[in-house]
């Protein structure tokens, strides 16, 4: 059915969110994998740990997402061999953009949100479209529930316009627990109204002490 004619993609649904804080970054995604009206699995992680301080969350076509994550992990390993250090978040951000644009004429059906800490230890979130256009922002969301979540984040995490001068910090002044609380609430709300979001929420928090994982049960209907 998915290969009817020349349509090579499939949308496996799901939603991803990332929020940058002063000294932490929260990246979260639901764990439901679906196709059409069916659930393939309730326990599939959309989050990939690429480096010490870099985490990638992607929603869209899982076939392409698996390939993309594998590709980036391999490139990161090469980088580590050549430079004797881990990739920083902005560096990974650029690499992801280039990787996506490389397939400009047969894109990865992947909607990505990259989160981590930059070289100064501040929270860092990059948001992408399917072909590599990216921007550093204070928070972002991608996937089927993104249009339900983004307005709430816009309201609660008022991000200053990137056009303002002098350049203002996009990171939120909220504490880590407050940001995680917001993410949980916002996902519970998106689950109520989006059929492709639900089952379980995986929350990854990156801060100076490393990467921490937490789970929240969501509605399974």
């Amino acid at each position: 059915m998915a290969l009817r004619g020349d349509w090579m993609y499939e949308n496996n649904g799901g939603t991803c969110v990332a929020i940058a804080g002063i000294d932490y970054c929260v990246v979260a995604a639901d764990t439901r994998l679906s196709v059409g009206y069916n659930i393939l699995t309730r326990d599939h992680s959309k989050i990939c740990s690429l480096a010490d301080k870099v985490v990638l969350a992607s929603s869209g076509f899982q076939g392409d997402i698996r390939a993309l994550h594998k590709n980036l992990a391999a490139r990161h390993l090469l980088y580590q061999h050549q430079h004797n250090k881990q990739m920083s978040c902005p560096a990974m951000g650029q690499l992801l953009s280039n990787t996506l644009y490389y397939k400009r004429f047969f894109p990865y059906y992947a909607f990505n949100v990259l989160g981590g800490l930059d070289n100064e230890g501040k929270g860092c979130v990059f948001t992408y479209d399917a072909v590599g256009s990216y921007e550093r922002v204070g928070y972002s969301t991608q996937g089927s529930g993104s249009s339900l979540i983004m307005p709430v984040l816009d309201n609660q995490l008022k991000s200053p316009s990137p056009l303002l001068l002098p350049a203002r910090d996009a990171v939120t002044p909220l504490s880590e627990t407050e940001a995680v609380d917001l993410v949980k609430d916002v996902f519970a709300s998106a689950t109520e109204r989006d059929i492709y979001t639900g089952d379980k929420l995986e929350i990854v928090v990156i801060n100076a002490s490393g990467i921490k994982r937490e789970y929240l049960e969501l509605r399974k209907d």
Partner: protein
Amino acid sequence: MGRMTELPTKGGFSFDLCTRNDMLLKNGLQMPPFRKTGTTIVGLVFQDGVVLGADTRATEGPIVADKNFEKIHFMAPNIYCCGAGTAADTEAVTDMVSSQLQLHRYATGRESRVVTALTLLKSHLFSYQGHVSAALVLGGFDVTGPHLHTVYPHGSTDTLPFATMGSGSLAAMSVFESKYREGLTREEGIELVAEAICAGIFNDLGSGSNVDVCVITEGKTEYLRNYQLPNPRTYISSKGYTFVKGQTEVLSTKITSIQPKVEAVEGGDAMEE
């Protein structure tokens, strides 16, 4: 010479705008999606009557439009009908046949029969050639005993001991096929229906939220709205949200003062002019 006679209205749909709609679609117009019910609806016959069940989710594409929608419609005091498909169509067709049944009860002086409702529904749907997208599970108890039927959008019907319809029908039917047997008791019947609806709720993305059940027996009907609520919200922020003035940026303000009120004249003769 042209005679301008009014053609008598024949009823049914008018397809006059089809060419214009096709042209608009070709030019890139996005039609608003119909609200469909996604849905799992079921019915089964047990030893004393019939049990109907339905989920409560109404969807508009991938979005849940209503989390607690009533899909078990009243047809007569002894006949209820579950509806799947386009929500407007199921509502309209069941309301219409329900009214017709009531008029028929007044005319005949008797309790309505399920086959009457069935015939009215199937002839209406057939005459609309499937354009009225209503897939129904009709059940009731009349003088001839318990009855359960399915009605398809094109107007065909089946008479069955257990039935499921909607996008979750396969999930529900798998439960019925495993566990149904003749001569179920009332409790067993309700439990089986609830289990089938839950299978639809959890395994079909078009169905969700709560379980509605309706039990129809001789002389008594029980509509158990929200019989089960297996999907509570999993998390609510204890912090809550406050929206202070200025949180949503005001980009521009324009104030237009209201015109001064015109004085009403006592005992005015405006109507007599």
